[in-house]
C-alpha cells in the first residue's frame, strides 16, 4: 500500500548536514498496523512527516515514497493537498495541536467539508456519530479544546484524522504525555479502527498491543523489521534487545553510552560503539539479512563475515 525506498532526509544547518533519515526502505501492507519505534532523535517523526511532505524548506529529501502507484515526492502541491487528510491522514501529538478558539466538532468537520464539499450541518452530524463511537458523547462536539483532558484531546485528534475516511493513517506518538490508564484507552481505540496505519512511538507497551509489525529505527536507519509477536518474544538486533531490556518489567537495564551525533554518525554500524557484541567487522556497514522472514541489519546475522 505504501512503499518507501532508500529514503534520505538531510537538513542543512549551520553546524553541518544532519542526516535525520539515511537510506530507509520498508513497505506497509494494506490493513496492517506498522509501528516505527525508536528514541527521540532517531528520525522517526521526520520520516513520517516526509511522507506527507510536511517538512520545512531546508530539508533535502531523496528516494521514493510510492502510494497507489505514484511517487509522492514527485507530486505537485495541489495534488498533495488532495491526498492529505483524504487519502493519508495525520494524527498529531496531543499537545497544542488543536485550535483553542474553535469547537472541537468544527475542527473535526473541517476535513469532511474540505474534501467532500458537504455543508457544515451534515459534516457535524457525521462527527457527532464518530464521537459517540469513540465513547465521548455527541454533545461534546460543541465544546472547546480546553474543556477536554489530555486523553480526551487525543481521541478528538484521532476522530479528526479519520473524519474524511482516509485509507492510510499516520499517528505521531499518540500516547505521549498520557498516564497508564489513558494509554490503555487509546490502545483500545486504535484496536477498534480498522485501517492501514503507520504508528510512530517510543511507548513499547502500546506498540506491543496494537501493532502487526515493528520497525526499529536507530540514528536515521531502520535496523530491524519483525512481526510484533516475534519481536517482543525475541528481538534480533542488539539495539532492539537493549531497548526491551531497559523496560522496567524486563530488568531496567540501561544501554551504555549515548546516542551518536546525526551530523557525524560513526562509520559502519552506527550502534557499534554501544554494542556489547561489536567486532572489527562492524566498522563496515552491515548488510541487510533476512532471518525467518524478518529483516535485520547486523553482522551477527550476515551469511559471511561474522564467525
Amino acid at each position, binding site marked *: 500500500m505504501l512503499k518507501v525506498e532508500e529514503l534520505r532526509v538531510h537538513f542543512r544547518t549551520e553546524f553541518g548536514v544532519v542526516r535525520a533519515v539515511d537510506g530507509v526502505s520498508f513497505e506497509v501492507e494494506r490493513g496492517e498496523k506498522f509501528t516505527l519505534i525508536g*528514541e*527521540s*532523535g532517531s528520525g522517526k517523526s521526520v520520516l513520517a512527516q516526509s511522507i506527507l511532505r510536511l517538512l520545512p524548506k531546508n530539508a533535502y529529501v531523496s528516494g521514493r515514497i510510492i502510494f497507489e502507484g505514484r511517487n509522492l515526492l514527485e507530486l505537485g502541491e495541489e495534488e498533495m493537498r488532495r491526498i492529505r487528510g483524504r487519502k493519508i491522514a495525520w494524527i498529531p501529538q496531543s499537545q497544542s495541536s488543536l485550535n483553542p478558539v474553535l469547537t472541537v466538532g468544527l475542527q473535526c468537520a473541517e476535513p469532511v467539508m474540505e474534501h467532500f464539499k458537504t455543508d457544515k450541518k451534515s459534516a457535524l452530524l457525521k462527527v457527532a456519530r464518530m464521537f459517540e463511537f469513540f465513547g465521548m458523547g455527541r454533545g461534546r462536539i460543541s465544546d472547546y479544546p480546553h474543556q477536554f*483532558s*489530555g486523553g480526551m484531546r487525543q481521541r478528538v485528534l484521532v476522530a479528526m484524522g479519520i473524519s474524511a475516511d482516509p485509507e492510510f493513517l499516520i499517528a505521531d506518538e499518540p500516547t505521549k504525555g498520557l*498516564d*497508564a*490508564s*489513558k494509554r490503555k484507552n487509546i490502545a483500545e481505540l486504535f484496536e477498534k479502527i480498522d485501517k492501514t496505519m503507520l504508528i510512530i512511538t*517510543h511507548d*513499547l507497551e502500546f506498540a506491543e498491543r496494537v501493532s502487526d509489525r515493528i520497525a526499529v529505527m536507530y540514528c536515521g536507519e531502520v535496523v530491524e523489521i519483525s512481526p510484533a509477536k516475534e519481536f517482543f518474544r525475541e528481538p534480533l538486533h542488539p539495539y532492539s534487545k*537493549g*531497548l526491551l531490556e*531497559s*523496560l*522496567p*518489567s524486563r530488568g*531496567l*537495564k*540501561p*544501554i551504555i553510552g*549515548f*546516542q551518536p551525533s546525526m551530523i557525524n554518525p560513526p562509520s559502519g554500524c552506527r550502534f557499534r560503539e554501544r554494542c556489547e557484541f561489536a567486532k572489527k567487522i562492524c566498522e563496515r556497514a552491515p548488510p541487510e539479512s533476512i532471518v525467518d522472514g524478518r529483516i535485520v541489519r547486523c553482522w551477527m546475522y550476515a551469511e559471511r563475515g561474522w564467525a
Partner: protein
Amino acid sequence: MLRGVGLRKVFKTGLFGGKRIVAVDGVSIEIEEGETVALVGESGSGKSTLGRILLMLIRPDEGKVFFDGIDLTKLRGKELKRVRIKMQLIPQNPEEALDPRWRIYDSIAEPLRIHKLVDKSEEEDRILELVKAVGLKEEHLTRYPWQLSGGELQRAVIARALALNPRFIVCDEPTSMLDLSTQASIVRLLMKFQKMFGISYLFITHDLELAKVVADRILIMRSGKIVARRVESPS
C-alpha cells in the same frame, strides 16, 4: 524520619473561588531513613501536591509534617530554610527545571550559594565532583539548558539536588519525559546514590512497573486519598 499526618489541601478556583478541588484528602504517610516509597496514581490524583506538601512548598490546610520529629508546619522563614537544606525536589520536566538564561554551572551552584555553605574555590571542587558523579562532563558546565539533551538535563537537575547532601528527595515523575533507555540509566543513577548516601525517596510515578523495581513500598493514590498500600519484595 519523615512523617505526614492527616494532610489535607483544598484548592479554590473559578470565579471568587467558588469551585473547590480537594487535592489531598486526609493522607498520612511515613518514610523511613534510606527507604524508597513510590506514590503511584493517575494524573490529577493529587500525588504531586502531596509531594510538595511534604517539602512545605505548599502549606497544607490541615495536618502536620514532621521531619526528624520537628513539626515543619510551625516553622517560618529562616527556620524553615535551615531544615530545607536536607530536602530536595527533582521535578518532572528537566527543560523547565533549569533557568534558560543560566549556564549549567550556575544552576548547580545555586543551592550552595543560597545557603552560603562553601567559598568560591570549594564551590568549584564540589561542582566538579557532583558533575562527575551524575555522569556529565566538565564541558557541559559552560553550556545553556537548550544545548543539552533531556537525559543530560535531568542529570544536571540531579546534581543540583545532591549539592547539599540531602536526606530526603521527592522525585516527581523524574523520567516521564525521557526516552526508555535514558529512563533506565537515570533511575539506576538515583538508586546508586541512595545506596551510597542513604537518602530517602518519595518516588512519584504513574508507572506501576517502574514503581515495583525502585520502591520498598508502594502507595496507590486516587482522588486525593491513599487507597492501597503494598510492600515490595527486594529485587
